[in-house]
């Protein structure tokens, strides 16, 4: 069960082409819906039954999200794709855009049909020039084939997709900051509620989903909710793309069933480089708590299992580190990232991220003080849960977890003014 959904075309020559996608059953789901005039609520129900959860990191049930839209409300509704893949360690959406853009287009169309929208936007990370062009090509192909545009396949259903390239801000991956940015404003998260389902793009009801989430939808419709759900484990339906990086032999994207043991995933990636010990793993992108390698070896890759050991599945970015890594230095780099990427709106995040980075930087450079570890813990605690969006939490969680699991390394830095690695 590898590369079954989002990467289904990957084994083909030129997998991004329309004919390749169609040869693998592509657009059949859309054609079926349009031919049978499937009721909207049936599609939403199907997505609910599939157990599909948001693949961007938060893991919110997708069908539920679609169900929040008031389909009978007059006026525009929108589908927005979050392809602003900025989470350090994550590179799965990039490859969907590059190798299977039509799955995403079909997913957008099905979503649009299900919620009664006629316009979709794909917000692509600013650095993704090649994926952007690939996706645009696919949009053109679909439009020329009559699969996109006005009156698709003579069904009376019309839908337009616009592609937007971001400008390099991590925060614009936060869904409401993305909407602000798409509207031409400064990318800053909105206070919620109201949620985008009520007040989204241009104040209209909006479904905003991650690229992988929407690209999974066609197969759910075509092969059934049960088929999809049964690939995974309870509460974690379907396969998931894991971006494995770090000190492994074959870093890359692996689409495998949810619930696969971490050890097995590591093996698929060729195991640890030079046979070294797996010291630590960040299992879901830089924003989630780090876990020591020995804990990870007993964990399966699904939402609940990882939560049980104190971390999160996040976006599925698995960063594997061997014992040549200094955890203080790793944390310094991560803290620097959040310091640079905080939007500056909320006080705790704006001020706290810089504070934490500076203290860690000091420890790394041999001028740390004994009280710094408690200070870091306390500052992280004061950011956690006190901000409008999750970036504050994302900045705080690594700090707290690195100190929790690798306190001795920090202590060594403070005591000996140098690294133990």
């Amino acid at each position, binding site marked *: 069960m590898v590369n079954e959904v989002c990467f289904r075309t990957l084994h083909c020559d030129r997998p991004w082409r329309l004919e390749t996608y169609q040869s693998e059953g592509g657009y059949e789901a859309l054609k079926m819906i349009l031919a049978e005039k499937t009721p909207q609520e049936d599609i939403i129900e199907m997505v609910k039954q599939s157990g599909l959860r948001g693949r961007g990191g938060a893991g919110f049930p997708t069908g539920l999200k679609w169900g929040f839209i008031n389909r009978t409300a007059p006026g525009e509704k929108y589908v927005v794709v979050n392809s602003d893949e900025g989470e350090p360690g994550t590179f799965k959406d990039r490859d969907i855009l590059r190798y299977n853009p039509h799955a995403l287009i079909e997913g957008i169309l099905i979503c649009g049909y299900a919620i009664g929208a006629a316009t979709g936007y794909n917000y692509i990370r600013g650095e993704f020039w090649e994926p952007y062009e690939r996706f645009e090509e696919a949009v053109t192909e679909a439009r020329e084939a009559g699969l996109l545009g006005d009156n698709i396949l003579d069904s009376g259903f019309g839908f337009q997709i616009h592609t937007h390239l971001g400008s390099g*801000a991590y*925060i614009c991956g936060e869904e409401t900051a993305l909407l602000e940015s798409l509207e031409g404003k*400064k990318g800053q998260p909105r*206070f919620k509620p109201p949620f985008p389902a009520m007040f989204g793009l241009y104040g209209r009801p909006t479904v905003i989903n991650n690229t992988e989430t929407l690209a999974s939808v066609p197969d759910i419709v075509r092969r059934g909710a049960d088929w999809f759900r049964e690939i995974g484990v309870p509460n974690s339906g379907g396969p998931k793309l894991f971006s494995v990086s770090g000190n492994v032999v074959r870093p890359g994207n692996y689409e495998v069933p949810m619930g696969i043991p971490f050890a097995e995933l590591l093996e698929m990636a060729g195991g640890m480089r030079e046979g070294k010990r797996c010291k630590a793993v960040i299992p879901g992108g830089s924003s989630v708590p780090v876990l020591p390698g020995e804990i990870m070896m007993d964990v399966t890759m699904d939402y609940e299992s990882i939560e049980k050991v104190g971390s999160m599945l996040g976006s599925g970015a698995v960063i594997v580190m061997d014992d040549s890594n200094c955890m203080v230095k790793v944390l310094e780099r991560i803290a620097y990232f959040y*310091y*640079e*990427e*905080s*939007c*500056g*709106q*909320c*006080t*705790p*995040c*704006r*001020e*706290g*991220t*810089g*504070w934490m980075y*500076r*203290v860690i930087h*000091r420890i790394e450079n041999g001028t740390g003080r004994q009280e710094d570890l408690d*200070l870091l813990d306390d500052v992280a605690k*004061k950011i956690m*849960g*006190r*901000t*409008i969006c999750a970036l504050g939490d994302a900045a705080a969680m690594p700090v707290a977890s690195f100190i929790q699991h690798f306190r001795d390394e920090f202590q060594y830095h403070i005591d000996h003014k140098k690294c133990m690695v």
Partner: protein
Amino acid sequence: MVTIEVDGQEITAVSGQMLIEATDAAGINVPRFCYHKHLTVVANCRMCLVEVEKAPKPLPACATPVSEGMKVFTRSPMAREAQKGTMEFLLINHPLDCPICDQGGECELQDVAMGYGSDVSRFSERKRVVRDEDIGTLIATDMTRCIHCTRCVRFGGEIAGLRELGATGRGEHMRIGVYIENSVVSELSGNVIDLCPVGALTAKPSRYQARAWEMAEYEGIAPHDGLGSNIHIHVRRNQIIRVVPRENEALNQTWISDRDRFGYQGLYSEDRLQQPMLRENGSLKVVDWQQALQATARLLKETLPQRIGALVSPSATLEEQFLTAQLIRGLGCQNIDHRLRQVDFRGDAADPRLPWLGQGVTDLAGNRATLLVGSWLRKDQPMLNHRVRQSVSEGGLVMAINPVAYAFNYDLEVDVVCAPSSMINELAGVAAALGADTLGITVVPDQAHQAIADALSAATQGTVLLGTVAIMHPDFSILRALAAGIAAKAGVSWGVVGSGSNDTGAWMVGAVPHRIAGGGTAEPGGMHFGAMLAEPRDLYFTVGFDPEMDTADPAATTAALGAAQLIGLGSYLTPWLEQHADILLPIGAFAETAGTLVNLEGTAQVFQGVTAPPGEARPGWKVLRVLGNLVDLPGFDQVDAAQVRDQALAACAGLAPDNTLGTSSDCAPLTAPGDWERIGGVPMYAVDGQVRRAKALQETPDAWGAVARLNTQAAAALGLEPNSAVRVTQGTGSAEFALRIDDRVPDGCVWLPIAVPGTQALGPGFGPITVNKV
């Protein structure tokens, strides 16, 4: 209504209201920085975090709607811990040098830090330093102190309608600034000073002048427009240090215009008239009050009443206007007028009983359609314009017929820009489109006229407002009759928005030749301002204005007043007065006298004197009262301003604002297209002597200077180079002005306001002129 429990206390709140609104109403203090009741909620400062039962995390009170039975704890350990955490973050990068900060002592951050801060900082890194930008002469910046609450940013977009300040950069690098280096030019910009919770934005003119605790705070009424914004005057040792808004939801809400905020500076100009002066052997000499008053009384008594002309400023207090009218009428003279900016008096017989705005101030915000005729409302009446802007954000339409494409801070649905001589035709076009009386003007309505007519008739509530340009127009009476007809036909209200702060009061107390106090008809009537100039009087008695600057036709005014005997009650000594006045009596200006101003909606607002007038100057009402005694008139025995006011208001009992217009007999337009037409008007920072002397305001881009504006084609037709000079000749007067190319000006027109330097020798604001290359 819902009932919630806050800190064990049950309070009721409006359903859907934010928690902080409910706690504020109940007098429960929740600390905050970004929240302001007139701005959108952004919930970014995180200072107002409180504990709400069943919520796992502390919630911002400013963005949490109340719900029935909600239990809130603003001082629980969870809430305190969150509030203290935010305070620690706010302080780590904030300079802790309050002793040298201008905000020290009245700083929200300082105050809240007293309750939620710690006395020792755990932050030992370097603090952030932010480069300052020069954003003009009104607002001083010290951006290192900024705590990024974004109140100033939201104010720009939501209230001023001009996004001048913005947040650039992310995270710790986020800074508030103007992005492209230019000054902040909104006429409401000073409000960001009050909004700023720290010392990042402070008032430049009063910076480092006084500490908050050294100043006494007095209530006052702003005297520079027809709204009468409520203000607080901050005084130290008999000197006004600054002016800030005083909240009045019905008028100015929590804002004031820059003119009202910084106009006080004009009180401290060097040319204040401080001593009574009397002309002896051809030159003005300082004399004592007794001499001056006796000379004045003698002159008044000696002059044949019909040969006297009395002119009183529309911005003088109700008491001054009332006593002037009583004095002049007591002498047997009816020649009194306050309409100093008006040239067309043909409508006098049709004048309404008490002209006013036609609506309450707050009603302006509820209008679905507003037609501005000859009005740059944004600059003339900034706070009234704010209400109109509110109507636009609620979907109302605003249309204009103006001689210049004036810039507004909202979009105009229809903007008819035409030469002044065409304005009556344009307005008649709207009347024709509505089927209202066009007063004999033949016009075929075009698309714009129809659009205006449709919008007005479709509006459930609307208005037609005539501005200062219309008032100064040679065919004001026709514009007014057309406007009234349009309003009646479309079922909307109408009003005249003059530039004085007490126009309404002057009408009430009979400071017009054809009305006595209380609005009754004067029998016999006297001469209006225009007639007093056309048939010069022997003696002019003027109160509170500058004949060269505050009148519609400076050339005619100075000619008539200069040739006659002139008694001037005023606050400033100009070179012209020095040459031409015979007696000058120094009176206290704004805040130096008690008084009353009646605003455009008819609300009489009383204020007290808060500083002593300079030198020998005395409150105007006292001077007038003594004059009444000296000319042996009854009814001049008041002991304080309150008694004068009581008598004035008693005389007006039963007089209610009423715009009902009579029929004009003369409706023949006087304007005809000339080779070149002048577009007058009064720049916002030239409306009165005090504002013209307010240094900081005069250094802003809104100060006009000796400048004439022509459009590109007009300048080219005259062979004028950009930034060269032009000579403007009007009647017998002529003066040179710097040329500015401005394509908002229609062809064949020169935008050259009155009351700006160099225009003293010229004639009325509107009319034919000649323009030459220098």
